């Protein structure tokens, strides 16, 4: 089995470039949409790129309590989301990167980044960073089982843990796709996805009050280039989750080959899909308030139960009736 072909390398580079270029835009887009919904003007759509440019030209100040872990963390977080971006299907869902690993690798790559980010947040010895880090870990342990179980329901339907295979199976189902089991799994996945992105009602990316920050709180002691890298990584992660949701909820319109005539329409279609998901996320964010930290458990446990129901329904459906 020959896997390191020119096409694979092209695909890797293409995927990385798209993810790197698109992620700041999507983040700004969500800010803009939210501002419009709140009758504000909002930032210009290029603001994400301006921010990155600014961060990379600023001086980096580092706490004198820190060691190499603090300096290495932004690079590891950034790399882990980049590798994760090769697993998530975007607009080219050819199964040539199937060999890397599936959903389990994806979840654990996110986990790797989180491990380092939370460790690094403890390093400056600041109370705010430590608080954010400990809360992030608490949230992650609630999110992870929900994320896994809702993806496992889709896995068991499609018969594979590899995301491109799942997406192509889902698309082959046509309109029959929308079974109750699938819809429930999708709802649960949406909840887990929003939590994973760290958005309202779980965490507020725009807060400026240290006691309520979770993700931003961990970055308090970062500045300059390192901060830029951390922000970029979190935007990429956000884009990946959005792409995942978009492709699992609407598994059509991706390109099957690396030919220009296929890629261009697929890319446009991909943009539309993620735009729709962004609108949904922003609508949810505008309509409901952030919940109290320890109430987050209730939402995620409910979501876990929804996944279990989805699992039972889909197995009931596939075998026709429950029996032992």
């Amino acid at each position, binding site marked *: 089995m020959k896997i390191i072909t020119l096409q694979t390398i092209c695909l890797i580079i293409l995927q990385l470039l798209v993810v790197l270029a698109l992620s700041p835009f999507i983040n700004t887009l969500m800010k803009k949409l939210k501002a419009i919904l709140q009758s504000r003007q909002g930032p210009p759509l290029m603001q994400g790129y301006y921010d990155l440019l600014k961060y990379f030209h600023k001086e980096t100040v580092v706490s004198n309590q820190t*060691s190499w872990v603090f300096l290495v963390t932004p690079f590891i977080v950034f790399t882990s989301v980049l590798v994760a971006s090769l697993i998530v299907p975007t607009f080219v869902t050819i199964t040539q990167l199937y060999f890397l690993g*599936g959903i*389990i690798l994806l979840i654990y790559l996110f*986990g790797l980044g989180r491990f380092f980010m939370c460790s690094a947040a403890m390093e400056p010895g*600041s109370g705010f960073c430590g608080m954010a*880090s400990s809360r992030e*870990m608490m949230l992650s342990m609630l999110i992870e089982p929900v994320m896994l*179980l809702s993806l496992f329901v889709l896995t*068991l339907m499609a018969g594979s843990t590899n995301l491109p295979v799942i997406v192509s199976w889902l698309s082959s189902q046509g309109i029959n796709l929308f079974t109750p089991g699938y819809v429930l799994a999708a709802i649960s996945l949406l909840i887990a996805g929003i939590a994973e992105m760290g958005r309202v009602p779980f965490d507020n990316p725009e807060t400026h009050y240290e006691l309520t920050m979770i993700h931003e709180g961990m970055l308090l002691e970062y500045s300059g280039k390192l901060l830029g890298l951390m922000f970029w990584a979190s935007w990429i992660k956000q884009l990946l989750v959005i792409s995942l949701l978009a492709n699992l909820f609407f598994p059509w319109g991706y390109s099957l080959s690396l030919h220009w005539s296929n890629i261009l329409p697929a890319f446009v279609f991909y943009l539309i899909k993620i735009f729709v998901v962004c609108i949904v996320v922003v609508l949810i964010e505008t309509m409901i308030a952030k919940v109290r930290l320890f109430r987050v458990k209730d939402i995620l446990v409910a979501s876990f139960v929804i996944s279990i129901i989805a699992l039972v329904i889909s197995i009931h459906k596939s075998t026709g009736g429950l029996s032992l």
Partner: protein
Amino acid sequence: MNETQLLQFSFLFFILATISSFLLNNFSKKLSIFSSTIFGIIASALCLLSSALILIHRSKFIFNIPFGLPFGRLELLIDPLAAFFLMLISMLSIPVLIYSVGYLQAEYIEKNVGVLCALYHLFVLSMLLVVCAANGFLFLFLWESMTLISFALVIFDTNKAESKNAGFIYLLMTHIGSAFILFIFLILAKYTGSFSFASFHNIGHQLPGALKLILFIFVLIGFGTKAGLIPLHIWLPEAHPAAPSHISALMSGVMIKTAVYGILRFVFDFLSPFPYWWGLILAGISILTAILGMIYASGEVDIKRMLAFSSIENMGIILLPIGIGMVFFSLGQKELAGISIIAGLLHTINHSLFKGLLFMCAGSVISVTHTRNMEKMGGLIKLMPQTSFFFLIGALAISAFPPFNGFISEWLIFQTLLSSFHIHSQAMKIFSPICAALLGFTGAICAATFVKAFSGIFLAMPRSHTALHAHNVSYSMRLGMRILAFLCLCLGVIPFFGLTLLENVSESIVSAKIKSNLFNVNKLFVNFGPDGFAYLSPALVFLLMTLLLLLVYFFFKFNTSMSFRKEETWSCGVTPKPEYEYTPSGYSQPLKIVFSEMHTPESFYHKYIYLPLVNGLIGFSHKVRPMQSGILQVYLFYIFITLILCLVWLRL
């Protein structure tokens, strides 16, 4: 020299190491440590080589010890399953011995260090022999000696009161376990008329179902005590911290794994065929053990207790796929059963590597800070850079993050759990994906616990005077840790070597060859399941990670200046102090709040399970006590009554 001779030589060297370190103790303590290490390493290396050869050749040997006892011949059987555990024990023993050179000199040089070394070798030897024993009597004898020697090691620090208490609980619990194993042998021997394992083989065909179930429950209690399955785990968090750290590494790394051996041997070899719900029982207990063990670990501030609880969790993770494998086995899916057992055994190796590493790191930290309390540490990364790096690797491996070995085995366990859709059991189809999600849950708590431990011990500012005066540990200690850290990475990037050997083991257990279209391992890939169910390429993931990391780093290095200005941490305008830091117990507070229902303190088990048992026993004893009146005539009367009853029984 063939495998058997190698093995015999290795046993001889272990005995030599024991005697030499014991005798040299009075002469020179350093010489004693030295001879113990040299002979021990030779012995372990010989054992490692021989077991690897046995695994590759899939050979099977039987030794007979010419020793006249009424319980049948004392025989040793070395099949691939035994050879796997021989390999596991000897593989961990080498780095532990290297580590112990520095550790013993730093910590135990004033004490009877030669005795400690001698006990160490006897301990390893008893573990090696227990997995080879092929006779019930011999097995029990070795099982008991393993327990007693490790008891002696646990209470080695005799000046500490907690050691004695821990040793007592350990002795008591393991003897309850041993009693149940004894019952199993007695019942089996009643049916076969022999204590030989060969006669127990597939005895399950002849036993009545109810008796088989009782035997299975006895297996669960007997070996579950050793494995630390909840609620039989209470000795583990007491005994492991009390022992010297290199012994803790060995106890956590391999001793509790003998329970895995016992369960595999008894269930698959003796009691099969069995109904599929036995597997569900084992898997259910295992996932419960994994979750609760990790939740308890997350609340600990004592570094070694935390690691002990995490061992409980990992035993749950190891036994989970074995339980699922039992389900597959009894439903006729022998190949899937084989893969599940591979997953369990791979995690057994991986756990012994990273847990050994973590206990060694803990030992290093404790030996320089003289405390086990993580609240009193902090900032050690600047004083012990290498130890902190190895601890980080161990923490990443145990939290199952790529590219380390824990990820590979957990990935395989996830896949075996998800492969349940191949079988026609609805219960299983619902049960195992939920188990998989819960496994992810324990993984996330594990990550939180180890972020807490790593940052609490090594990062930020020192929170006590002792942590301020920590220093680097000796070269041999660092070398021992380095070997294990390297192995953790190796097995995470190229799991190929481990997995191919394990295929031989699982084939011998389930007696079915795993087809390559179902499970295919080569240097780059692990492929699981038909029709591309799951692929993983640990080597490519590692390669991509390194490549991208270097790319991003050099992109930054050449495009912008990488100079940093060092400033104080911002603490709302006051000078940062260690007291402002988040402590380990503060870190786990949100967890405790969220899992307040599950986060029962240790006394829960004492209060609701053990105390009623003990009280019942004492109450019963009090009731029986009036019989012992101390009057001679009453005793004569008892004898008389007994005699009459005996005569009556004989007549009938």
